[in-house]
């Protein structure tokens, strides 16, 4: 006998209300994006696609989109790859496994604001940690501006996020690899397959769910990067490290252009939904008996 649903429905209510508020706000935001705004004041007149056209005319918007795609590729691929390889190498560790897991995972507990403060110092051209170490090794660091150099600033920033999230990928893949049968790997070992082959031709195809989780979660993270940009560069040099989530805030609160801010957030919504919805369809299976 199970409890009847009518009695317990009250348990579900708070979450239903919260989720309804969230989706209500998303719809509200959608309406705002199609409304003519007089600075901070809504006229509630239908604007059609005006806000979007204004947005698409900005070169800044397209630079932001490009930067977001740089993030997608250069954040997700290395983080997933290293996490995966590390998870495999962890098999050799046995008892020290927990200690090493902690070492790679601790940055996950830090705030982006802390990571950003820390790495902004590490990258500082004049008195940063990296240049001081390189200088100590006798390397001329005069040209190594890291985060201050327009062409590589965004990669420096992505690297600090990579440092923070490798532990996440590691933990996900450790779980996924543990779920595989030992017999499969043993058999490959006996067949004389090299470690590279075992890793990429036998294990990788069988931990697809781990890869899905990792890439989706990291992809969503790239749609949230705001704190890191704020604290490390403020979008600079110029707008070379600006990304959509940061521009959305700037448009709305610094330039008081809510119409365009809302339009930007709709672009973010579309990109994020394209990542979250397929994942969610797959993920809900684990909660349904």
């Amino acid at each position, binding site marked *: *006998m199970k409890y009847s649903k009518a009695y317990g429905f009250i348990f579900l209510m708070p979450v239903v209300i919260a989720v309804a508020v969230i989706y209500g706000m998303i719809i509200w*935001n959608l309406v705002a994006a199609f409304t003519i705004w007089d600075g901070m004041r809504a006229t509630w007149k239908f604007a059609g696609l005006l806000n979007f056209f204004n947005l698409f005319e900005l070169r800044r918007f397209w630079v932001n989109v490009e930067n977001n795609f740089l993030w997608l590729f250069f954040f997700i691929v290395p983080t997933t790859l290293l996490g995966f390889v590390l998870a495999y190498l962890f098999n050799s560790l046995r008892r020290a496994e927990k200690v090493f897991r902690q070492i790679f*995972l601790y940055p996950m507990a830090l705030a982006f604001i802390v990571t950003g403060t820390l790495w902004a110092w590490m990258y500082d051209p004049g008195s940063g940690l990296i240049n001081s170490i390189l200088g100590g090794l006798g390397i001329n660091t005069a040209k190594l501006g890291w985060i201050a150099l327009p062409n590589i600033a965004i990669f420096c920033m992505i690297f600090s996020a990579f440092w923070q999230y490798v532990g996440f990928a590691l933990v996900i893949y450790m779980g996924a690899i543990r779920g595989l049968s030992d017999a499969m790997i043993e058999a490959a070992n006996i067949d004389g397959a090299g470690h590279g082959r075992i890793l990429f031709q036998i294990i990788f195809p069988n931990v697809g769910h781990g890869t899905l989780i990792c890439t989706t979660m990291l992809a969503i993270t790239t749609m949230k990067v705001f704190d890191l940009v704020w604290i490390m560069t403020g979008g600079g040099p110029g707008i070379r490290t600006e990304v959509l*989530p940061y521009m959305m805030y700037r448009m*709305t609160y610094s330039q008081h252009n809510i119409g365009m*801010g809302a339009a930007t957030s709709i672009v973010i919504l579309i990109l994020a939904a394209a990542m*979250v919805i397929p994942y969610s369809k797959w993920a*809900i299976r684990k909660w*349904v008996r």
Partner: protein
Amino acid sequence: MGDKRFKATSIVILVVLAALWLLPIYAMVNTSIKTQEEVAAQKYLRLPRKVAFKNYLTAFRALRVGLVNSAIITIPATFICIFLGSLAGYYLTMFEFKRSQLVFFWIVVASFLPYQIVLIPITTLIGWLNLMNSYVGLILIYVILNIPMATLITATFFMKMPVTFQEAAALDGCKPFMFYWRVLVPVSIPGMISAAILVFVQIYNEFLLAIALTRGPKIKPVMPILAELKGSQIAQWNIQMAGAVIVSLFPLVIFIVLSEYFVSGLMAGYSKE
């Protein structure tokens, strides 16, 4: 034989990488206790000749109000999230409810969407409710945004409870809330702790809403204050790092002491099982 060599190589690789991963935090703590003169010498990896704890005093003085504010906001928000979220998780996993798949779908989507998507409505809503720059406003918003995640994680742990348990309880005339409070929660304490840690860290580390919904230092949580400290102490790396250490202390201690829960929370929230 090949296996032994592989093992040795992988351990070497892991040790080198681990050292690289620890380097930033070592440098951070090391620099945070140095005097300004020693910092200026830029030998960041060398241990300090003179320990300057007064950096921590300077940083703490700037961050104190922010830390208190963060505690006032984060602790109640976490408790409310876990309580309400676990009630829903209980309902969704243990009751006869045909639509649970659909409800789960919308909860999962809601828990992963970026905050930017609802930022403008949130500030408007909070303005209307006259809760701008108030603890209640921030707590309310954090609860709304984090309840979905709390529901998902607790539900994952509740799934481990055999259905026969509550069937037997129902036959004995145990009311649903009693079952939740007397049986499910005590049995699922590890799951509740995992969920609480994840939600706590998420709220404590949050920055976007913390700056959008506060004006001036009175209510501001600690993350925006640390950001301001970084702006006001330019090139005073020792003060900046001391501030970063103070702010990270609590999440890091939780993480080190309760890391098993942290990991199982991550697995429950994101992974397959």
